[in-house]
Every structure is written in C-alpha cells, then in structure tokens.
C-alpha cells in the first residue's frame, strides 16, 4: 500500500458473514413460542425451551452467546488467513415482540457494538493502530441491512441523522475521502489492493421495493437514481484504472426484491462492467443459494 508505505501479505481468501441478528433479550430456557424472551407456559418439554446456543427453525433471533462464540472462533481460526471481510448487514434482532419494541437507539447501539467487535478483531496487530485507525490488518466492508434502519425498511436520501450515525459507527471502515458521498447515501468502496482490487458496498435500501420512502430509479429526485449515477461513475473510473471489483449489499438484486426500474438499470450496470466485476455477494434471505440474472430481459424492458 503506497499511501501507507506498508506491505501486506495476501492470502487469496476472504470471509462473507451476514444477518447476525443478535438478540439481547434471548433467554436460555424461555419459551420458544415467546420469541425465546420469557417463560409463560408450564410446559417443561425440552423441545419448546430455548437452548443456550439457539435453535434452528424455531423463529428466535441469535443468542448473544452464539454471536460471541462465533466471533471468537473467527478471531482464533480465520483472522490471520484472510484478506478482507464482506459484512452484509442486519445487525440487530427482529422487531417481533410487542413487549420489547425495537428502538432506533437499540439499532444504533447494536450496530456500534458489532462494528467495534469486528474492528477489534481485524485491526492491525502491529501496534500502530492509534496512529492510523484506518489501517486495518484485514479490511472490513460493511453494508446496511433493512433491519439496521428505523423504522424497519425505511431509509430516505441523505444526509440524515441515520446516514451520519452510520458514518460514526463505521468510521474505521469508510475511507475519509468518501465521507461526503457516504453521508448522501451510505454507499462506498474500499480498495483492498490500491488501484487493483476493490469492494463496492451498495446501499440496496434505495433500490428495495419494500422501502416506502423510495419509488423508482427513473426520477432524478429519487435516491436510487443518484445511487446509480454514483455507481456508474465509480465503475467507469475503476475500469480506467484496470481495477477489478466485488459488489456487495444486503438485499440481493433480484426481481422480487428490487423496484423494477432499479432492478433493470442495476442489472445493466453489472453486466456492462462484467470485464471488471468479479462477483456479487448479498445476504437478507438466509438461504445459501445463487440466482442467475439475465440481462436481456432488462435490455428489452428499458
């Protein structure tokens, strides 16, 4: 890295982690039917009780113990073997319990907690962190999830309190020169190898059908429209520099998730830049799978 005058060993490996959804109210031994938050029934059968590490398919969020142990494992087993981390959002429990309504403060609080945990794991271990807090041993590239905003799914064009708060929360991960653009829309990119390899983190909430504060990507006053101009300019510049790039975000760019005009335009961009785009990695749906997206449909549509 010429700007930091530092060498870094590359391993040819990176981590993708998503949808952590930690739940501070998860209570071991509570009723699964009560979102694993409390005990209401006399039913003592083990199958209806919340186990210490959580239970698959039960509908409860992530126990803090499970999250902490997972991070400890990553710290111990992966930290020194990877080059960067894609972290694609949803860092807070679901808002599914009327006894504990999720608040904006709680959302920010948990996003900050997780941001600090990841920073502590992956910061440079050479002892010069205080001199340059942006110099991470392993780059972490976060992206915003539909549960990381308040109210759920709703995110308007920046600068807003929320965009500024996310800059504060992710300050170690966002290159300084991108602060202004980040404030406008919570999208940014990180150079893993300067002028060679980068990861672009897209705020997919501006393209997301379920965000009631955005309508489409055809009107110039829409945040999705501005995001696509930004995206196109970044890709064009990266092509000029002969860079290669990964695209990441929370909500996957497939028809059922994106507003139609946003889906079509986004699809065209990622296909037009298939000479430099290495791949597209997302979260949100909890299922490990892949979707092939056909550009011809979008060309016809536009």
């Amino acid at each position, binding site marked *: 890295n010429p700007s930091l005058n530092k060498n870094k060993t590359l391993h040819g490996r990176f981590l993708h982690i998503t949808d952590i959804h930690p739940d501070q109210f998860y209570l071991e031994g509570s009723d699964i039917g009560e979102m694993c938050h409390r005990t209401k029934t006399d039913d003592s059968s083990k199958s209806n009780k919340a186990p210490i590490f959580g239970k698959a*398919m039960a509908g409860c969020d992530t126990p803090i113990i499970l999250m902490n142990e997972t991070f400890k494992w990553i710290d111990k087993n992966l930290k020194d073997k990877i080059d960067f981390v894609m972290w694609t959002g949803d860092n807070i429990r679901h808002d599914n319990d009327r006894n504990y309504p999720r608040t904006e403060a709680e959302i920010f609080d948990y996003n900050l907690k997780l941001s600090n945990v990841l920073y502590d794991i992956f910061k440079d271990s050479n002892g010069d962190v205080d001199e340059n807090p942006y110099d991470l041993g392993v780059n972490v590239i976060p992206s915003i999830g539909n549960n990381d905003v308040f109210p759920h799914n709703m995110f308007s064009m920046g600068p807003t309190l929320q965009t500024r708060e996310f800059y504060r929360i992710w300050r170690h991960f966002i290159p300084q020169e991108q602060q202004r653009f980040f404030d406008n829309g919570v999208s940014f990119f990180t150079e893993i190898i300067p002028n060679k390899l980068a990861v672009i983190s897209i705020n997919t909430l501006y393209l997301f*059908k379920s965000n009631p504060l955005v309508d489409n*990507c055809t009107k110039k006053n829409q945040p999705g429209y501005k995001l696509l101009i930004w995206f196109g300019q970044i890709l064009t510049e990266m092509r000029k520099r002969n860079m290669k790039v990964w695209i990441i975000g929370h909500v996957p760019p497939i028809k059922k998730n994106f507003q139609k005009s946003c889906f079509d*335009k986004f699809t065209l961009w990622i296909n037009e830049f298939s000479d430099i785009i290495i791949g597209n990695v997302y979260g949100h749906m909890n299922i490990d799978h892949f*979707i092939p997206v056909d550009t011809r449909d979008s060309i016809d549509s536009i």
Partner: protein
Amino acid sequence: YLSSKFTSNNDNNDDDDEFYDNNLSIDEYIRDLARESKEVQMMGAAPVNKGSYMDKVRKEYYQKVFEEIEGIEDVDKQEGDEFEIKKKKKKNKKDKKKKRKLRRDLDQLIREYNIISIGASIIPTFNPSFRVWEYNITGLEDELQVANKNNKSWNDFFHELEKILQKETISMDNQANDDDDDDELENLIIKNDKTIPKLTNHKLGPAYENQLFTPIRYVQYYINLEKINHKYYELMASDNDDISKEGAIRQSFEVDIEYVSNSDPYNMETLIVPEYFELMKKLYLDDEIWQEYLDLAFAKSGYKD
C-alpha cells in the same frame, strides 16, 4: 400505502422469499398481509415456504438456463445432421466449424448472465453459517509492478463526481415533466440518462474466465446447533464440579465445514459463470443432486415446508 404496494405487485415481508400471486385482489392481498403479519408476531422469523421458494428458483431460473443451453445444442445438432448427409467427406473440417459455432453461441449466452450469490445467515433461521471464499492471486506480483501510477487521486475524482451529480440532477429536472409521453423525447431522455450504461463490447473478466482475482473455491462453515447444545447440556449434567458454565460453553462450541464448492453436489473446479451453467444443468436434471443442494441451502437443518 397498501394500495401503492399492491399496484406494484410487491411483497412486504422481512426476509420473505415467496413469489406472490399477482392475480390476487386487493382485499385478498390485504388479508394475506394481515395473516402474515400475525404469523410474524406469533412466530418471529421462523422459516415458512422456503422449500417452495427454492422450487421456484429451480423452475424459473435454473430450468430456463438449462433450456437455453439445450436450445443452442439442439440447433447445432440439427445443423450437424444435415451436414452429415450432404458432405460426409469434409466431416472433420465442418466438425471444427460446428464446435466453434457452438462455443460462440454458448459464450454469447454466458456473457448475458450475472450470478448473484446469496449467503446463509448467522441467525438460526436454519443452522448458522458463513463462507470463506478463495480467489486466484497468481501473477499478482507482476501486475503490481506495472501498476499505473498516473491515476488521479480519488479526492480529485470525487470532486469531479460531485459536479457531475449536481449537473445531472439539475439538467434532468429541466428536461421533462412526469406527463411527457412523446416518444422522441423519451428516447432522448433514455439516451442521455446517465443511470443507463452505454453498452460496449468488452473482454470478459474474472467472473467468466479464470484469471487474477477469479474466485476459485469456497468453504462453507456451519454450526450444528443441535450437536453443540446437546454437548453443552451433557457437560453441565455431568458430575464434574470443575466445569463452569463458561468452560462448558467453550468446550461445546464448534464450527464445522459444511461443504466445499469443489465437492458434491457442486463439484465446481472454479467459480466462473460457465461452471455455474454446468451446475444449473445438473440441478435441474438430477433430483438427487437437487435434494443435496436443498439440504445445504438450509444449512443441514433438515428444513422442509
């Protein structure tokens, strides 16, 4: 709000993966929303209809790709048969031509697709899971030596980008109002719309051909919750007084390798788009492979609708 959602055929559920029936009336749709909202309230994020979602993925995406590949191969086969009858003597020469054409058509099809990778979650919708990708770094040192040092600084780039953004949003404001339906004007707007890329004929990158930075393989890790919970409670129930709660947590927590992309059912040599095409063919044709794929998609949780 519901009305606008309805007219754009949207669904509104967090992490929801169902394809909605667009023929529902607004009343039916609202009833569905209310029912689902109640289910969310009652069941949190418990998975519902994920198997049916995956079946639709198989049918609407993987089958389509398979049929397109088959279409190309069928046309090629027919052309080949006609040729067999007419000019048997020049078989070898024509065979080569045929292969080249098939390759060209397949290449064209492949470059029209992008693969979207969707990761499993830590939240135990199924079992918690995460992925380590491996990518090609062969030749990186040579590349670094010829890196272009004449690039402008990112600061300068962002300064210019800000001007572009300002100009774009202002000029577009003046171009047309919402009710314009004039075709010429519409074409002009599309032509000048900077949110639509100019399509160029470019080389294929690392997503399509194995080269520097191409993803080669991934290792999918998962946490078998049933196993580690069982181990923890066994330890806690043992007569060993030396085991504290923290000690039992430490001893019972495990992360396992769930699968790797170059083993069954994936068996991909690299993670380039042509390899995904081969995989989609298998996933569509072979029910056994499909079942294995589903098992991994749901992180070995045993989930079924």
